[in-house]
C-alpha cells in the first residue's frame, strides 16, 4: 500500500473543503436551518405528532440524510471530475498508486466531509427542536455507511460525466426527487396504500428509515432490511468502481 499517496490525496481534498468553507459547510447549514424554520416551526406547529414525536423532531433524521446524500455525491463527483476537467488527472494516472488507493483518498475525503456536515446539521437541529438519540452507535453506523456509499456513487458520476451538465443531472433529476419522496418529511404509513408499495421501491426510504430508527425507534421498514439495503447499494457501487478502473473507462483512452 502506498499510504503516503492516500494521505496526500485525502489531505489535498480536505484542503479544498477548508478553502471553500462557505460553499462546503455554511450553505448546507443555512438551507437546513430554513427547512427547520419553515417545516418545523411554521408548518410543523399545525401538524399533529407523527408516530409519537413532534413533527419538527420527526424530520431531523430525514433532513440530515438529505444533506449527507447530496453533499456526498457533490463532493466526490466534483473531486474526481475536476482533475479530469483541468487535466491534472495525468499525475494521478502516472503515479505509482493503485485504484484502491485513489478511491480511498477521494472517497474517504468526500465521506469525511459529509459526515462532519451531517453532525453539524444535527447540532444545528438541536437548537430548533428537542433531540434525543436512542442508539448513537447505530446512528453513526448509518451515517458513515450512507456517506461512504454515496461518495462512491458520486465518484462514479464524476468519472462518467464529461461535462458540468452531466455532473449536475443525476443529483438533480434522480437523487433529490428520491430523497424528497423517501420519507424525509413524512412517515410512509401516512401514504395511501398504493403509494406505500411504490415508495418501497425507492432505496432512499430504507436509508432514512434506518437512520430515523436509531433516533426514535420508529421505522417504516425493519432495521435489518435498512441495513441490508444500505450494504447492498454499497456493494453495487464498489463493483462499478472496480469495473471502471479495470477497463480504464473514461480515464484512459
Amino acid at each position: 500500500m502506498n499510504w503516503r499517496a492516500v494521505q496526500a490525496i485525502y489531505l489535498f481534498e480536505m484542503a479544498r473543503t477548508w478553502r471553500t468553507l462557505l460553499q462546503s459547510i455554511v450553505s448546507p447549514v443555512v438551507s437546513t436551518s430554513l427547512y427547520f424554520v419553515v417545516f418545523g416551526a411554521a408548518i410543523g406547529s399545525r401538524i399533529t405528532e407523527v408516530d409519537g414525536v413532534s413533527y419538527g423532531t420527526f424530520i431531523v433524521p430525514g433532513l440530515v440524510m438529505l444533506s449527507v446524500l447530496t453533499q456526498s455525491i457533490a463532493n466526490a463527483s466534483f473531486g474526481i471530475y475536476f482533475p479530469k476537467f483541468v487535466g491534472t488527472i495525468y499525475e494521478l494516472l502516472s503515479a505509482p498508486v493503485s485504484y484502491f488507493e485513489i478511491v480511498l483518498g477521494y472517497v474517504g475525503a468526500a465521506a469525511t466531509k459529509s459526515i462532519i456536515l451531517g453532525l453539524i446539521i444535527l447540532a444545528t437541529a438541536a437548537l430548533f427542536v428537542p433531540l434525543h438519540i436512542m442508539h448513537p452507535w447505530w446512528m453513526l453506523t448509518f451515517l458513515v455507511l450512507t456517506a461512504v456509499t454515496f461518495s462512491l456513487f458520486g465518484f462514479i458520476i464524476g468519472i462518467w460525466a464529461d461535462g458540468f451538465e452531466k455532473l449536475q443531472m443525476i443529483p438533480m433529476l434522480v437523487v433529490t426527487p428520491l430523497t424528497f419522496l423517501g420519507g424525509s418529511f413524512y412517515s410512509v404509513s401516512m401514504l395511501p396504500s398504493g403509494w406505500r408499495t411504490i415508495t418501497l421501491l425507492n432505496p432512499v426510504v430504507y436509508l432514512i428509515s434506518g437512520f430515523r430508527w436509531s433516533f426514535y425507534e420508529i421505522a417504516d421498514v425493519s432495521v435489518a432490511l435498512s441495513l441490508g439495503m444500505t450494504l447492498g447499494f454499497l456493494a453495487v457501487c464498489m463493483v462499478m468502481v472496480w469495473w471502471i478502473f479495470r477497463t480504464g473507462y473514461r480515464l484512459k483512452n
Partner: protein
Amino acid sequence: MLSMSPIISVANLSKTYGSGFKALNGINLDIRRGEIFALLGPNGAGKTTLISIICGIANLSEGRVTVDGHDINKDYRAARSLIGLVPQELHTDSFETVWATVSFSRGLFGKPKNPAHIEKVLKDLSLWDKKDAKIITLSGGMKRRVMIAKALSHEPQILFLDEPTAGVDVELRKGMWEVVRTLQASGVTIILTTHYIEEAEEMADRIGVINKGEIILVEDKAGLMQKLGKKHLKLYLQSKVEAIPPALAAYNLELSEDGREITYDYDTKGDRTGITSLLSDLRNAGIRISDLDTTQSSLEDIFVSLVRAP
C-alpha cells in the same frame, strides 16, 4: 553489465484508439541509461501517445514496455516510481500554493516528506520566491516550471519532457536546459519531444524521428545533423534579373518569379558552404545584392526528404 541494459525498452508497441485510428505501429525503441534522447516528429506523429503509454496514462494495444526491467502493466508501481512526467499542456491546479502542489506530488509518489529537496528543486527552477503564491497568479512560463518541479519532487531516475519549450521565452528556455544538464550529470535519463530541430541539436545525445506512428530512424546526434543540416540563403537583388547567368549554373540557384530574389541551398556540415565564392561570382556577373537572409530546413522539409529517400 547491468548499467549497459536499456533503462526503457519498448518492443512491438502498437496503439489503436477506439475510433480505429492507429496512433502507433510496431514501435521498437531502447533508451540508454543516462542519455538525453530527443524524439522528433511533426504534430500528430505519435510522440505524446508513446510517452503517455510509457507513463501509464494510456493503455497499450499490443507489445510490451519495460522500465528498468519492470513491466509497465504487471509491475506498474516499480516502473512508475522511477518516472517523472512533464506533459505538454499546462495542467495545473489553480488555488493551491506552489509549495503545496509540489509537496503533494512527492506524497503521491510515495516518498517521505523532504522539505530540503523541495526547496532545492524550487530554487533550481527559480520558483523559490513564489513558493507561497497561488498557482493561478503565475505566468505561463512559471506554471510550466511548477510542472517540472512536480515531476522532480520525487527524485525520478527518468524524466519525460513533452514539448518543454513550447511557448517559453529564450531566457527561460536556457534556464531549463541548465536544469536538464544538471539532472543528466546526476545520472537522470531524459527523454524530450520537440518539433524544433535546434532544440534537439542543442541538447540531445541521440535523436529518434517518429512519423505517422512509426519510428523512422534513431541515430546519434552528430550523424543525423549531417543528414539534416540543409540551409537556404536568400538574396534580395537591387534590380530585376531576367535569368540566372550561365556562369552561375553550378550553384543550382533558384530565381523568384518577379526576378528579385535568388535562393541558394547549402550544407552547413559540409567542408565548404560555397557562399563566399557565390557572392564573388555574383559580383563578377554584375548582380548587386540589397539584403540577405538564411533559413534552416524545417522539420517538415526534413521529413519529406527522409520519407522520399530511396
